């Protein structure tokens, strides 16, 4: 769900967000989902050194689908954006955890720690399939 969608914050959410540094919490009205995720993950420990992720997802604000989805070192999804589209937020999930969030070019969450980003293998067949699926969703 992107920031352009309707994303109301509950009282509980607001309480969580209030724990964040004020300059980050102030972005909650514009980027409620990203800032709530930031709040939820704020106290998490960074990934251990040499942590090798199984599942990597990179989301940007303008799409429900991940731009990149890597599973066990294999590129599963590749959904690039039109060049003219402005990316206002980026969310990186590693093994289902929020590892990195940036909003308007500003990093608000970084739990990457000592992570080792995997070499990515690309299966042309999967790539073409993913691209065509992305085209059809346009």
């Amino acid at each position, binding site marked *: *769900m992107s920031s352009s969608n309707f*994303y*109301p914050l*509950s*009282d*509980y*959410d607001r309480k969580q967000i209030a724990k964040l540094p004020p300059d980050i919490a102030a972005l909650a009205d514009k980027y409620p*989902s990203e800032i709530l*995720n930031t709040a*939820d993950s704020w106290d*998490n420990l960074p990934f251990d050194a040499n942590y090798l992720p*199984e*599942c990597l*997802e*990179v*989301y*940007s604000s303008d799409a*429900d*689908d*991940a*731009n*990149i*989805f*890597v*599973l066990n070192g294999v*590129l*599963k*999804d*590749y959904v*690039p*954006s*039109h*060049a003219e589209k402005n*990316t206002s937020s*980026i*969310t*990186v*999930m590693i*093994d*289902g*955890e*929020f590892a*990195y969030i*940036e909003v308007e*070019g*500003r*990093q608000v969450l*970084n739990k*990457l720690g000592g992570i080792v*980003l995997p070499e*990515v293998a*690309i299966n*042309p*067949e999967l*790539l*073409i*399939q993913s*691209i*065509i699926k992305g*085209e059809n969703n346009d």
Partner: protein
Amino acid sequence: MIEDGEANEIKRDYLDILESLLKLIHAKAKEKGLDPTKDVHIYSSSSKVYQGTLGESPSKNLLTPTIVENLKKALSDPKNSQGAISIKIGHEKVFHIKNGEVLTDKLGLAPRSQKNEVVSNERIYSVEALQKQVAVLQSKLESQQKLVDSLKKNEQTPESLSELAAQVAEMGKSLEKQQQLIENTQKALSQVNERFLPQVQNTVLQNWVGSVERQVKKTAKNAFERLLDALTPEVTKLRKEIAQMKAQIEQQVTNRLDEVRENTDNIRDELNQQIGNLTQELRTQVDGVKNTVDQSLMGVKSAIDNTRTELRDAVKDVKGKVVEESVKALLNILGTNNPDGSKSFKSTTFDFERLGDNVIVRAKNGEPVLTDGVLSPNVSDQQLQALDKVQSVVDMHRQLENNAQQNSESRGIKR
């Protein structure tokens, strides 16, 4: 537009589904020794859509009927679910599904048989797959070509011919589809280079994202070129071959028609020829008969003519002799003795003359009519009739002489 009543019903439905799903999650969590009092978090893609504990009002609920439906599918029929859904209990991720693939299922929520079972309903897009499809078309084409070749040996009936034509047309359509698929793939691949991944501020991430993007573009470019190099000529060749085959079949059909037409023409020609021959023969026979008859008639006619001529000549011959004797008698009675010893007499129509035994009768124009007892062939019927009278003049004169002699004899007796 959904009416309020319907909307409420749908909402009740999905709330029921949601409650049973939450109960399932709680029950399974309890089984696995997880703390059921901790909040359950449900994420759709990167957004949290639910947070709550069973039996309590949730602290967050942005679940829509669509998401609930998808969640239900993720737990009952994972391979047909869409997008990404993840479930956490407290901070522990217990379930994660993406694109129909169950990535994490610590509670055993999804049906066991379908776990980690990737069944793709997607059409396969790859140079290899496209090549295989083209190869299938090629082999089909080859078997069709055999059929087309057998056509030349006239082993095909008109029915199988039209069936074959339909098959080739069908293959043409398949090829068009294939071509479309290849073009779409090429288009998609070429568009990869016009699209970009977002720029990430974090250098490590950006390096990684950038390298993935570069790798993807390189792969896409290679695939695109391979499609161009390997597949396009094949497809072009196939298209040509199919077009040729169509032409061959059409030619065969045309030949068949020509053959039938030719046969018909031949039969007609033969028939005409036979009729012509028969007519000719009849005409010849008729003509023969006619000629024979004509010739016979001609023969008869010429025979008659000959006879007539002979007869006429004989009559003339006889007549000539008779007339000559009459003329001799006439000249004896009425002829004038000429100094050359000849005798002559001139009537109104003829000049008669005798020298020795030679008698000649001339018409008034000097043309001889009778010479040496032979009538001239030019003698006319009128002249013949006039000549006939010569004898009667002679006869009349002799009668007068006889009468005079008898009178003098009787006078002598009386004395």
